[in-house]
C-alpha cells in the first residue's frame, strides 16, 4: 500500500472533482423545472451533436470494457479482439433504425423500448415482457461497472468494500439531484482522461517494450507455448464463426439495451443521430488500442493480482500494467480515468432502468393516473434502488457471478430484437407470435448457456458464450455465439407463431403509430406535442 500513495492521491482528487461537477450539473442548461420525467430522465431531449457524442460514447464504452477486453485478449488472444469489428459493424447497422426510433418516440412521447412496443403492437403484456427483459439485462451491467472500479482499487492494494460503497453513494446522490445532466457533463472529463491515457499508453509503452513487432511476437510465443487450442494471435478454423457471430450478435444487442436508447432519444433531431453514427467509431479506434494493452501486458511480463480465492484476477491486468510501467502520478490519472469511466455508464443505466420501471410497470400496473411529478419522483427513487441493488450484488455475491449475469444479459436482451428493431420496420408480426418467439429464444439461450462449461475455472455451467456445435450432434469443434443461435430460434418461432395466430384468427392488437410518424423531424409540429399519448 505504501508504494501507492501518489497514485491514490491523484485518483481521489480527480474523483472528487468530478463528483462536484455532478452536483453542479443540475444548473447546467437549466430547465424551468426538473420535476418531470422528460427533464430528469432525458435531459429535456435537447442535446446537440457534441453532447450526444459524449453521452452515447460515455455509455457504450464502459470501465468494464477498458478492464475486461484487454483481459480477454491477454488470456485468449485474437478472439478478444472481436470488440473491434463489433463496434465497426454496429453504427452502420443502426444508422437508419435509430432515426426511425427517434421520430416515432418524439411523436408519441416514448421514453423506453417497451413504450414503443406497447403502442405498436397494442399489447401491454408484450411491453411488460420487453421491460422486464431490459431491467434484468441492465442490472448486472451496472454491477459490472463496480468490478471495473474494484480492479483499480485492488491494484492500489486497497481491499474491502467500503471504498466502492462510498463511490456509489456519491454517484447515487448526484444522479438523484441532476438526472441525465450529470453523466452528460462528466462524460466530457471521462473521455478527455481516457484519450490522454490511451494516447500516452500506445506511444510510450511500445517504445519501452521494444516496438509493436516484438509485442506481437511475445504474445505469439506465449500462445504457442500454452496447450489451450483456442488461443493465438490469429483465429483458427474452430473459432472463426464464433468471432463473427459474437461481433455481429453483440452489435445487434447494443442498442436494444434501454440505456443506449436513452442517449439517442436525448438528441435534438435526426441529423444529430446520423452525424453521431458517423463520428462514434472514433471510439472504436481507442477500443482497438485498449484491447492491445492485453498483449503489452504479455510482453511486459505483467502478473495479475491474486484474488482472495487464490486465483489470479485477470481483470487487474491493465491496472497492473500501468502501475508497472507508468510513473506513479500518471498511473493515478489512468486509474481515475477507469474509475470515472465506471460512473458515467452506471448513472445512465440506472436512469434507463428507472424509466423502464416507472413507465412500463408503475404507470401501467400500479398507478394509472400518475402525474408527471409523481413519475419523476418514482423514477428518482427507483434509480437509487437499482444502484443499491448493484452494490449489494457486489457485496453479497462472487464478482464472477455478475460477469456470468452480464453474459446472460447479452443473450436475453437480443431476444427483444424482433419486437423492438424489426417492429420499427414491419407490423407483420402478430403480438402472440412475438411473445412466443421471445419466450422460445430465452429458453433456448438459457439452455445453451447452461451447457457451456469453463475448463479454465472448473465451472460446469454458464462458463462462456461459445456454444459448441457438437452439442447438436455435429462432428466438429466449431463454436457459435449462443445469443445468435437463440435469436434464430426466436425469429423462427415468431414467424411460425404469427402464421398460426393468423390462421386461428386470434385478435391482433391495434397499432397506435402511423407510417409517417417514423420520418418526422425537429420542427414538425407533431414532434413537440408530447401530450399526444396522454402522459398525464
Amino acid at each position: 500500500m505504501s508504494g501507492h500513495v501518489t497514485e491514490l492521491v491523484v485518483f481521489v482528487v480527480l474523483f472528487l472533482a468530478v463528483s462536484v461537477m455532478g452536483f453542479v450539473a443540475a444548473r447546467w442548461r437549466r430547465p424551468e423545472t426538473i420535476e418531470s420525467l422528460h427533464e430528469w430522465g432525458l435531459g429535456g431531449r435537447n442535446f446537440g451533436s457534441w453532447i450526444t457524442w459524449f453521452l452515447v460514447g460515455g455509455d457504450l464504452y464502459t470501465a468494464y470494457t477498458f478492464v475486461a477486453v484487454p483481459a480477454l485478449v491477454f488470456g485468449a488472444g485474437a478472439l478478444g479482439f472481436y470488440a473491434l469489428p463489433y463496434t465497426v459493424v454496429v453504427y452502420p447497422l443502426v444508422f437508419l433504425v435509430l432515426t426511425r426510433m427517434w421520430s416515432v418516440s418524439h411523436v408519441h412521447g416514448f421514453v423506453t423500448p417497451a413504450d414503443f412496443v406497447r403502442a405498436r403492437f397494442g399489447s401491454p403484456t408484450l411491453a411488460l415482457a420487453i421491460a422486464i427483459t431490459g431491467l434484468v439485462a441492465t442490472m448486472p451491467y451496472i454491477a459490472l461497472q463496480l468490478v471495473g472500479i474494484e480492479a483499480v482499487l485492488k491494484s492500489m492494494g486497497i481491499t474491502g468494500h467500503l471504498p466502492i460503497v462510498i463511490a456509489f453513494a456519491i454517484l447515487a446522490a448526484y444522479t438523484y439531484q441532476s438526472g441525465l445532466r450529470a453523466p452528460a457533463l462528466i462524460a466530457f472529463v471521462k473521455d478527455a482522461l481516457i484519450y490522454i491515457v490511451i494516447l500516452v499508453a500506445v506511444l510510450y509503452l511500445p517504445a519501452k517494450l521494444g516496438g509493436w513487432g516484438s509485442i506481437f511476437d511475445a504474445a505469439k510465443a506465449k500462445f504457442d507455448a500454452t496447450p489451450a487450442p483456442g488461443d493465438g494471435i490469429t483465429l483458427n478454423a474452430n473459432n472463426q464463426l464464433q468471432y463473427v457471430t459474437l461481433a455481429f450478435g453483440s452489435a445487434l444487442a447494443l442498442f436494444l439495451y434501454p440505456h443506449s436508447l436513452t442517449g439517442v432519444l436525448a438528441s435534438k433531431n435526426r441529423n444529430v443521430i446520423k452525424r453521431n453514427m458517423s463520428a462514434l467509431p472514433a471510439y472504436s479506434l481507442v477500443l482497438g488500442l485498449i484491447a492491445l494493452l492485453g498483449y503489452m501486458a504479455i510482453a511486459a511480463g505483467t502478473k495479475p493480482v491474486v484474488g482472495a480465492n487464490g486465483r489470479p484476477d485477470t481483470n487487474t491486468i491493465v491496472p497492473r500494467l500501468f502501475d508497472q510501467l507508468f510513473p506513479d502520478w500518471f498511473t493515478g490519472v489512468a486509474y481515475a480515468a477507469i474509475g470515472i469511466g465506471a460512473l458515467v455508464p452506471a448513472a445512465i443505466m440506472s436512469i434507463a432502468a428507472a424509466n423502464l420501471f416507472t413507465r412500463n410497470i408503475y404507470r401501467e400496473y400500479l398507478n394509472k393516473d400518475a402525474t408527471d411529478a409523481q413519475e419523476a419522483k418514482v423514477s428518482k427513487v427507483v434509480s437509487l434502488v437499482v444502484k443499491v441493488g448493484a452494490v449489494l450484488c457486489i457485496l453479497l455475491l462472487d464478482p464472477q457471478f455478475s460477469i456470468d449475469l452480464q453474459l446472460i444479459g447479452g443473450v436475453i436482451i437480443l431476444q427483444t430484437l424482433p419486437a423492438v428493431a424489426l417492429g420499427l420496420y414491419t407490423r407483420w408480426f402478430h403480438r402472440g407470435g412475438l411473445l412466443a418467439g421471445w419466450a422460445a429464444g430465452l429458453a433456448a439461450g438459457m439452455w445453451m448457456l447452461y451447457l457451456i462449461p469453463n475448463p479454465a475455472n472448473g465451472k460446469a455451467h454458464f462458463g462462456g458464450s461459445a456454444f459448441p456445435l457438437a452439442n447438436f450432434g455435429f462432428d466438429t469443434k466449431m463454436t457459435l455465439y449462443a445469443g445468435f443461435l437463440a435469436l434464430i430460434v426466436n425469429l423462427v418461432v415468431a414467424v411460425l407463431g404469427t402464421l398460426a395466430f393468423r390462421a386461428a384468427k386470434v385478435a391482433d392488437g391495434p397499432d397506435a403509430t402511423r407510417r409517417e410518424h417514423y420520418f418526422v423531424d425537429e420542427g414538425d409540429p407533431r414532434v413537440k406535442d408530447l401530450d399526444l399519448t396522454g402522459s398525464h
Partner: protein
Amino acid sequence: MTTGEPGQPRTDRSPWNWLLVLPIVLPLLTFLFNADEPRLLGFPLFYWLQIAFIVVGVSCTTLVYRMTR
C-alpha cells in the same frame, strides 16, 4: 412550417443507404484478415486491416449522412 402540408409523406429510402452494407459485411469476412503476414509497422494483418475497417465505416456512414440529410 407554413407550407400547410405537415402530413406530407416522407421516407428514409435512398439508394445511398446501400453503402451502409459495406462496413457491416467487410469486418465479418474473417478470410480477408485472418493472417499474421504481411505486417504493417509491426502489426500483423489481422490487427491493422481490422483497424483500417474503422476508416471504411466512418467514410461510408459520413457519406450516407451527407447525401441523405
